[in-house]
Structures are given as C-alpha cells and as structure tokens.
C-alpha cells in the first residue's frame, strides 16, 4: 500500500505546520501555483506506521548479516550517529561565521590530519560526497596537474577490466578516453598489457588495491614505476582500503591521488544508498589542486581555506563542505577505535574473509582464485554448477535471502562468470560466519535435490522475483491519482 492510499482530502497534521499564517503576501497572482500538490494527506500516526512497516521490509546490517562484496557492510556504531546529531551541530548554518563553528571545525581538522597520516598522503580534502565524486575530483586533479605543466597531450586514463564501473565512467565524465587492460590468471593486472598501454598519451592509471577480485595487487610497485616513467599519475580507488588499513599506505605504494570511502572503511551509514563521503588525498605535487574548502589550524583557531589560499584549486564540487555530518560520524568512529582499533580493522576483516573462504571451499564451493590469500573479500564462482544444473549465482543469491542473509555482490567483477563477491567485514562473529556456511551447505544440497525450487527463489520475502523487464518496458516511475 502506498502512502498516497492513506490519504484523505482535507486531512492535516495540525502540530506540524504553522496554525496561524500572516495574511501578508507580495507574490503577484501570475506567479502563484494553480495545480494541486499531490503530497499525501495522511495522519501522523498512519505515516509513522507506514514508514515503520516499510523499514521492516528491508534487510540491513542492524538486522541481518550483509556480506555484500566491495561495500564493507560493517556495524555502524550508534554513538557515531547520536553524537553527530547533537542539536548544536544540526542547527549550525553552513554560512555561519567560522567562530560559531570552532568545535565542528576542530573535528574536521583532526579527521583531515588522521586521514593524511594513515594513508601517507601530503594533503587531504574532505569535500567529496561519494566515492564516485572522489574519483571525479581525483581525475580532475590529474588533469589539472598535466595542464599546469603545459602538457595537453595526455588524453587517456588506463583502467583494469576488474575495476568498479565508476572508474571508466569517471574518466569519461572528466573528458578522458578509457584504455582498458586485462587481468592475468592469478588475478593481477596484466603487467605486459600495462607496459604496452602506457605512453605519452597516458594521463594516469586508476587502480583498486586490493582489487575487486579480493586479492592484493602484488606488482603494485612495478606498476607504479611503469606509469610514472611514462609521465602518468597513479590513482588509488580506496574502495577496499578496509583490507589493508594499517598494513600498507597508498602513499608508500606510490599513489599520487586517492579517495577513501568513509561509508565503507570508516563505518558511516550506507543509508539505503547514501549519503556517502569520500575524502581525497594527494601527494605533494598535487597539493595546489585540492578542491576547497579545507580546514586550517592557525594557533588555536580553525578557518576555512578557500580559493584565495589555493589559487590553482580545481574549485568547488559541493555547495558547502561536502557531507559534513558524515565526516563527523567518521571522526567519532576513528576516535572510538584509536590507533590499535584501526590496526585491527584490516586484521579481522582479513581473518573473517579467509576463514569464510576456507570453510566454503571445504563445503564444496569453487573459489575463483584458490591459490591466493583473500583480502577482506573473495569470489566464489558457480560456473560449474550452472553448466550442470542451470542454477545461477543469482538464484543462489535469492535463496540466501530466504535463509535470512543479504546476498553477496553478484555478477561483479564482470570477468568471473557466475560469481559471488563475499565480504564478511570484521564486525561479524565466528558464530555468524559458521551459521552462514551452514546455510550455504544447505543450499548446495537444495541445488542438487530441488533445482526448480532454487530457480524460483526467493520464497519468503515480501515479494517474489520481480519483473525487471516489465519495469523497464512499461515505465511506472510515479504514482498518479485514479482519474
């Protein structure tokens, strides 16, 4: 039932809008709205019930194990939310003077410095509002760097075929041509192909490490050398930073520019698809191009750095200071964990992934890169099962929903057929992982004994398998009242 169906003409929630309205108006008649606004006229109680019920139709970290690969679905500490929502923080206007926001700016400044130190970069800007925007900003800085040196010939960005779709889409949005390079059998970027691809047109290489295949790119130092020698810059997609936090620093691996998904590694909420936040870090030579504003500390005062301080900045990519409230949550998270806690993230994320991989292998699942260590995630392929029984990775994913687990990422990365990308994250207990393995074993049996039931999964969700083709062909994107 849609919220609109709880609506009755003329109903209003009297506490929620001004009761008396001044009769003053200076808006000429021809500017006034004539058509009705189709917002629901539902009671407060019915609205609360409706959205509470809707929430109950969602799987979430707070209610289910959510091993969605490449998304780092770890526990979002409640304190991070409640303390970021202290009323003084919520009520502060973005254009209020700096001296009314010293407490807020102190948190941002410290976060900026902490991110610099853990990534080994020379400078950090907190403004990007999502991973893809961090990428855009990073690639824009690469472009600005080359152009500032008078080099306008570098028109290509190299992207491995295992990369997130945002990488090539970003490069194009930034006006570059994408050169895709393949992955070798062991899951590393094909070094020979990289060597053949670089040249005077290379602006940079975008790399995720550990890669989306869940393995550490062993040749990263060599790749860095190859790209740098060709005059290109190295971009680090920090989507998988959770796997190596405190083990390696992107700065040490030779990266010139990086983004860090705070909604992954720093446990800010995924919120049903945002808000994200993806600070960018840069090496010394890219410092002048960082987007503004940034926070500076002068004596015991904090102030915004603007275009005046960074005349070569690529500019502004948000109206204010990015997703400020998300930055506060990340700050609180890092202070709760502290140095030792930050080291443990990668250790236990890796332990959980390797344990789950070992147990699933023992249970009879085929691991895509069995000779490699898992990073914080790994890939199971159902190719053999599909060829033999017709049951697909998607069928298995849907069946997992019936068993009370959110599905892993399916059909990504694109180069492994019938794949499930599984990322347990460090906050899951061994009991949860064991129970998940048990369910996966049951499913393996069900594939053999009840393949048709498997193909019809899910069976216990609020809806059964939905018709995507119909959705795209008979577009219904907005409710209309029955006429």
């Amino acid at each position, binding site marked *: 039932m*849609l919220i609109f169906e709880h609506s009755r003409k003329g109903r209003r*929630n009297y506490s929620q809008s*001004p009761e008396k309205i001044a009769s003053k108006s200076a808006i000429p008649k021809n500017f006034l709205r004539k058509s009705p606004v189709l917002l629901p006229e539902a009671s407060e109680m019915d609205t609360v019930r409706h959205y*509470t019920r809707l929430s109950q*139709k969602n799987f979430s970290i707070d209610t289910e194990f959510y091993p969605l690969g490449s998304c780092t679905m770890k526990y979002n500490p409640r304190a991070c939310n409640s303390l970021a929502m202290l009323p003084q923080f919520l009520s502060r206007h973005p254009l209020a*003077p700096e001296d009314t926001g010293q407490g807020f700016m102190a948190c941002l400044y410290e976060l900026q410095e902490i991110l610099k130190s853990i990534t080994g970069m020379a400078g950090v800007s907190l403004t990007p509002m999502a991973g*893809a925007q961090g990428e855009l900003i990073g690639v824009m800085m690469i472009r600005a760097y080359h152009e500032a040196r008078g080099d306008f010939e570098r028109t290509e960005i190299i992207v491995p075929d295992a990369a997130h779709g945002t990488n090539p889409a970003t490069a194009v*949005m930034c006006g570059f041509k994408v050169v895709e390079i393949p992955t070798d059998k062991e899951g590393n970027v094909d070094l020979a192909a990289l060597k053949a691809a670089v040249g005077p047109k290379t602006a940079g290489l975008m790399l995720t490490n550990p890669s989306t295949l869940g393995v550490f790119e062993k040749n990263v130092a060599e790749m860095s050398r190859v790209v740098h020698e060709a005059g290109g810059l190295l971009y680090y997609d920090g989507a998988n930073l959770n796997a190596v936090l405190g083990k390696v620093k992107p700065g040490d691996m030779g990266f010139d520019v990086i983004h860090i998904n705070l909604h992954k590694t720093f446990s800010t909420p995924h919120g049903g698809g945002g*808000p994200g936040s993806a600070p960018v870090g840069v090496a010394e030579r890219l410092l002048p191009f960082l987007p503004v504003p940034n926070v500076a500390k002068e004596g015991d005062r904090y102030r915004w750095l603007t275009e005046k301080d960074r005349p070569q900045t690529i500019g502004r990519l948000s109206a204010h200071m990015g997703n400020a409230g998300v930055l506060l949550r990340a700050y609180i998270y890092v202070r709760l964990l502290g140095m030792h806690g930050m080291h443990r993230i990668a250790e236990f994320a890796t332990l959980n992934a390797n344990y789950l991989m070992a147990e699933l292998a023992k249970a009879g699942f085929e691991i895509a890169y069995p000779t490699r260590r898992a990073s914080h995630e790994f890939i199971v392929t159902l190719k053999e099962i599909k060829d033999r029984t017709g049951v697909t990775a998607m069928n298995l994913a849907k069946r997992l929903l019936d068993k009370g687990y959110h599905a892993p990422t399916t059909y990504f990365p694109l180069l492994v057929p019938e794949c499930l990308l599984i990322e347990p994250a460090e906050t899951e207990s061994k009991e949860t992982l064991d129970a998940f393995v048990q369910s996966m074993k049951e499913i393996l049996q069900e594939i053999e004994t009840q393949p048709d039931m498997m193909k019809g999964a899910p069976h216990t969700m609020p809806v059964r398998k939905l018709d995507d083709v119909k959705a795209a062909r008979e*577009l219904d994107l907005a409710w209309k009242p029955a006429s």
Partner: protein
Amino acid sequence: MPFIPHTEEDVAEMLDSIGAKTIEELFDEIPKELISGKLTGVPAGLSEMEITRLMMERANKDGFYQNFIGAGAYEHHIPAAVWQITTRGEFYSSYTPYQAEASQGTLQLLYEYQSMMASLTGMDVSNASMYDGATALAEAALMAVRAHKTSRRILIPKTVHPVYRQVVQAIVSNQKIEVVEIPFDVKTGQVLPESLSKFSQEECAALVIPQPNFFGVLEQVDELTDWAHKHNALAIGVVNPTALALLNPPGEWGEKGADIAVGEGQPLGIPLSSGGPYFGFMACKNDLVRQMPGRIIGRTTDLDNKEGFVLTLQAREQHIRRSKATSNICTNQGLMVTAATIYMSLVGPEGLRRVAAQSHANTLELVEQLESIAGVKRTFSAPSFHETALTLPTTTTDVLSKLKQHGILGGLDLHGYYPELGNALLVCATETKTSADLQNYAQMLKQLLS
C-alpha cells in the same frame, strides 16, 4: 577491541581452519617493503563515555544562534518523527537496493519520493536523488548537452547561487562545455527577458532559470522559458522545493513548461548541519528520462503478479554501461531522501503551503521593520519569496559581527559574491521565527546603526 567480537579461542580455531599460524601470515602476499609501521597519527581510542564528553564540549562551544541566514540552506521545523524513523537501523544501515526482494522498504519509499517530487515540480518523472543542489544543476547541464546534441553551450544567469555556478563550471568544463553568464538588472534583481537577445546569435543547449533566484527575487520564469524554447534550447529550472507549494512549478512555466527541474532538497526535513549531508533533486519531462543520471525506481510485479519495486533503466548507469554511462554517480543521498519523504508525508500539501506562506510573510514583516531604520533599504524592486537583499548605510561585515555578539546571525554579506552591490545583506526569516524574534532583530539593528 571495539566492535570486534572475536575471542582468543575463535581466532585460534579460525586460523587453524585457514591453515595459518598468525593473523600476520594472512598478509604474506603484500611485498615486505610496502608494509608500514604503526598508525601513530591516530590518537589512543576513547570509550563511548569519553567521546560523548568530547563531542558535547565541542557542540557546546558552537552553541545556538538566532539564524537569519538562508542563501541556499533554510531552517525549517522538522517533525520529530522524521529522524526517529529515518535512523531506524533498517533504513540507516541498509545499502543501495540491489537485491530488490530484500529492499522493498527503501524501494517503495523512493518510488513515493519520486511521485512527490514529480508533482511538486510539475514534471513527469524524478530520479532518486543527486548529491546536492549544486551538483544536480551540473548534472542537468550535462544532461541538456546530451539531449541537445549540437550545442555545448549553457546560459546561466548571475542570479543563480554563486557557488552553484562555480560547481557547474568545475564539472562541465571537463567536457568542454561552455558556460555563459547572463547579467541581471541591478534595479529589479531579475534577469530581464529582453536582455537575452544578445545571447541568441549562437546556438545554446540550455538556459538555467532560478526561482526564486539567489536574492530571493522571483524571476519572470514564463518569459524566460518561452525564450529558451523559441531558441531551440532546453529550460532548466533551479527551484526551492518549499516555494513550490506556493509558486507555479517549472513544469508549468511558459507555454510548454521547463524541461528539467533541479534544486536543493534540504528544506524538506534536513537539518542545516553545517552544509551537509543534504540532497539534490532532479525531475524532467518523459522524453528526457533516458538521459537522466542517477538511480530511478520503477513499479512492477512479481511472479504472483503482486506489486513491487525495482531499480530500473539501469542501462543508463555506470555499473552496467561503464564508460558509456550517463554519469559516474553511484551512491546518492538515500537516507536524506528517506527523511524528505517522511517530512513531505507529515506536513502534506496544506502544511507545506503554510510553511511557505508563513516564511514569505515573516520575511516581508522583517524587511518592513528593517526598512523603517534610517539608511536601510531594499536592494531590488521585484517581489521576493522568503529572502530579500537589503542595502545598509555601513559595512555589512561590521553590522553582522555586532549582531552576532547579541546572538543573532543577521544574514549573508553579499559583498564577497557581488561586490558591485556595495553594503548588501541577504536576510531570510522562515516560519521558525516569531514576531518577537523579528522585533528583536529590528531593534538590535536599529541600535547598532544609530
């Protein structure tokens, strides 16, 4: 170990299963020379009690003010239920609804949101959100260029939010799109439709039309929209969603209506919070839907012919189309849209109209009181919505800093963005202000200027 549940026994059993002796061994594929030392830049961990105390101290330091600043971010009443429901774990800690059957809550809510925004803007369809108002406008410019096919030129009046113009410039210049700024009339504070004639020599992909504009002034949207269409350009409306409860929506501007409507969604239940997270909205006419960036939710049916909701038209998106996608956007601002949807449901059409009408009336009242002070006058003659520019007899920064000492944030100093306007101040009084608040501000200003 904060948030890590493993006992020593668990670790031992898990390592045993893996066939490793230590956790350290699991990192043996990382070349030794890359292994870094301790993360000494991170201070020691705090307990929840300690971090609570620290954050309370910082929040108290920032305190509370009587706020009369608008300029793109507006203080409105937010019903308590909005954020209590929005921060339920099922909304707060879920992700992009890739598994539709396990995400019907988020998907249906987004469909309801799209329906509400389409109606509010007078458009056919809305997407499920952009990052903020500024990036929504930049994406609209890119979308217009894709749809137009021949022109890579966008006309943007100087009455559009100055930072939005900067963001648009930063984003679209990557694709060699030219942004042409259109001047405004310093008397009315509007773009004069007749002033556009000199921009009609060369073809352009779109004309951006703010309503109200950055000064709060109402633009002649019908004439501007018709001008755009007459010159084979798309009309992009940048609108305040609260204002749309009172004002003619972009879909009904001029003879054919604007083609794309975007704006900042913050006024719909999102706290000011130093600038974010907010969300951008984007709606358009049916014929442009395949050019639209971002997530779009569609209603469909399941195997039993029961109604359900899915992500649709995904062939536009980066995870499918990669380098050929309409945009690189992936994660958007789902949680903020959750709040906005609940907000719009709780206030309803009449409530939103009242919020808009009272904000308009309060600003009028404040402006009248301030104008009665010697030397203070309205900067522009054209009518405005809930924000008005005033010209002061003395330096705006001095006045603002003195008002601040009395707990009042008196508005935005326009000098930084529009030096040509002299000592100009942009004031805004939403429905959250009482008559006493307005009087208090007027009295303080009178004292300071006398």
